[in-house]
């Protein structure tokens, strides 16, 4: 997936590091060092994600975000990148229409993951099928395929996989997964383990590489072969 990103960041060093890293991960990046140039680039081109710094020399990142959201005919995801991390600042960002918020100092890898997640969410509205590596999930037909093979999953296993697909590339904790699948009526702690076991038997075991990864027993996430 070739993702087009607009980066609006006034700090040259950070911008250079981000551009290099994103380009290394096959992103197409356009860069603006102030709000006015950023808005011009946004008007001229189409992007999958906009990475926006909150403090810009000419226009406040919050105002620019509002302007982009008000002008755009399609909902372009905005990842707010800022050195301010108070709840008030985060609230202002989300009020202005930001889709995600990342506080400096950040991991470059996390920027990539969040951009992928936002771009995927952006594209989710366009299609009922989601593909992660060789795994394809059809939400309307309730069908899952891996490497072209149709996989027969129970309703609960399908729902667990769907939660992981929606969270991709981020991980989902055990508690969050339990809350999303069973709500408050969770029978006992071994049930999730049992479902993950059956899910792995169907989704991972017949194939050379596993797509479901356990994070230190605390959560799960999907990984593509090239992620590993």
């Amino acid at each position, binding site marked *: 997936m070739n993702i087009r990103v607009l980066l609006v960041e006034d*700090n040259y060093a950070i911008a250079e590091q981000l551009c290099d890293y994103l380009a290394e991960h096959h992103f197409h990046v356009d860069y603006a060092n102030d709000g006015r140039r950023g808005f011009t680039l946004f008007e001229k081109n189409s992007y999958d994600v906009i990475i926006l710094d909150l403090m810009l020399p000419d226009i406040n990142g919050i105002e620019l975000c509002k302007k982009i959201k008000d002008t755009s005919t399609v909902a372009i995801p905005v990842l707010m990148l800022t050195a301010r991390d108070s709840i008030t600042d985060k609230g202002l960002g989300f009020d202005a229409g930001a889709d995600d918020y990342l506080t400096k100092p950040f991991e470059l890898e996390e920027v990539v993951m969040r951009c992928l997640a936002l771009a995927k969410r952006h594209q989710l509205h366009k299609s009922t099928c989601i593909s992660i590596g060789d795994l394809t999930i059809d939400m309307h037909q309730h069908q899952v395929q891996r490497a072209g093979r149709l996989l027969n999953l129970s309703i609960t296993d399908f729902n667990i996989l769907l939660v992981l697909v929606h969270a991709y590339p981020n991980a989902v*904790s055990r508690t969050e997964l339990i809350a999303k699948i069973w709500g408050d009526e969770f029978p006992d*702690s071994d049930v999730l383990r049992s479902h993950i076991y059956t899910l792995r038997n169907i989704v991972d075991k017949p194939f050379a590489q596993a797509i479901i990864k356990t994070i230190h027993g605390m959560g799960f996430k999907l990984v593509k072969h090239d992620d590993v």
Partner: protein
Amino acid sequence: MMTFKHSIYRRIIATFLIFTVFLCVLFSFFLLAYSWVVEDNIFNRFVDNETIFISKHYEKTSQIIQPRMRFMQLYNSWQELPADIALQHIQSPNQIEFDLPTGGSLHIKVFMLGPSQYILAADVSGFEISKEYFPVISIWILAVIVGISAIALCISLLVAKNAVGPLKRLTEEVSASKNTNELANFSNDFPNNEIGYLAQTFESTFEHLQQILQRESDFTRDVSHELRTPTTILKNLMHSTSHKELIYLNKKESRQFCYAVLEMEQTITTLLALARQESLTVERLSLLATIEDCVINHYELNNNDGFLLQVHIDSQYKLEANKNLLKILINNLLSNAVRYSLEGSLTIKAFEHVLTFENSSSPVLLSDPFKTHCKGENSEGIGQGLNLVKRVCTVFGWQVELESTESKFKIKIILNAEQS
């Protein structure tokens, strides 16, 4: 509408009413007692006058005559009187008024006629008006008490309203305001008296507090920006390929550089969080869910697949804490374990009110490991990690202890019993 267990408004009304009822009852008793005393004295005077009349007549004629009034009778001795009167006299020789079995009373005067003692007894049962009127008078007295109490209630309501009203309004305005901004110029609505002065004092205190909060907010925001931006550059440099090409850093120096950057990031995040007012807001949190959240989002841990993490915490274990600070605390301890654990393992346990983080480590020999810039021999950080852990624990009122043996490093956090 605010309600208080000990409302001044209700206290004023209650005090007024209790005092009024007490006064009414007291005066009613005085009134009744006075009427009884007057009545008894009139009877006694009648008896005295009659004894004087009988005595004078005896002195003139040496004859003993019967009293002029029909309700009086002259007796020769106590034995001639009814038996229970004689008995009452033996029990109380100075008594001059005796209760009759019929409900009335007998007033007595002992006097001498020549050498003999005589007793003049007046049965005043038919003349005791106070006893006869008592039921009617009682109703009237009760009616007067109720009437006066009602008037007192009205006056007390008025007094309480005038005295407590402004104070009540001040209390309600202060408690209803969600933030100090809403209290700007609110003292103008209060009269120029003690309450008005109190309102002005509140207003100026709130303004001062608002200024302090604004300064704190501006300061942490500016510091956040000025420190986080260069830290971001250093952190990204640490992960970028160009850093690996820095030939003038050997492996140890390179590791020291990385740890210093990561610890600087931790320090900035923790100190700024501790400085903020928002960090004082606590909520009931699931400890396991918070740890899971920290683990799956912990960069260093997730890039270390070989690290063995064991968590023994009941999913129902809850504690009261600020979510952001608790996550900072857990992240600091996770980072510490990932960096310094010898075997690459960490065990997290929560039992009763103690949360422990235990990992394999070489012994840490420090007199005060939680002191700032205090670090072990093998530490390549800047010696802030444990100090930050302690500072976060202090905010929640938790105690933190370190146990270090030849091979184990254990951080014990003793939670408040009522919080967990």
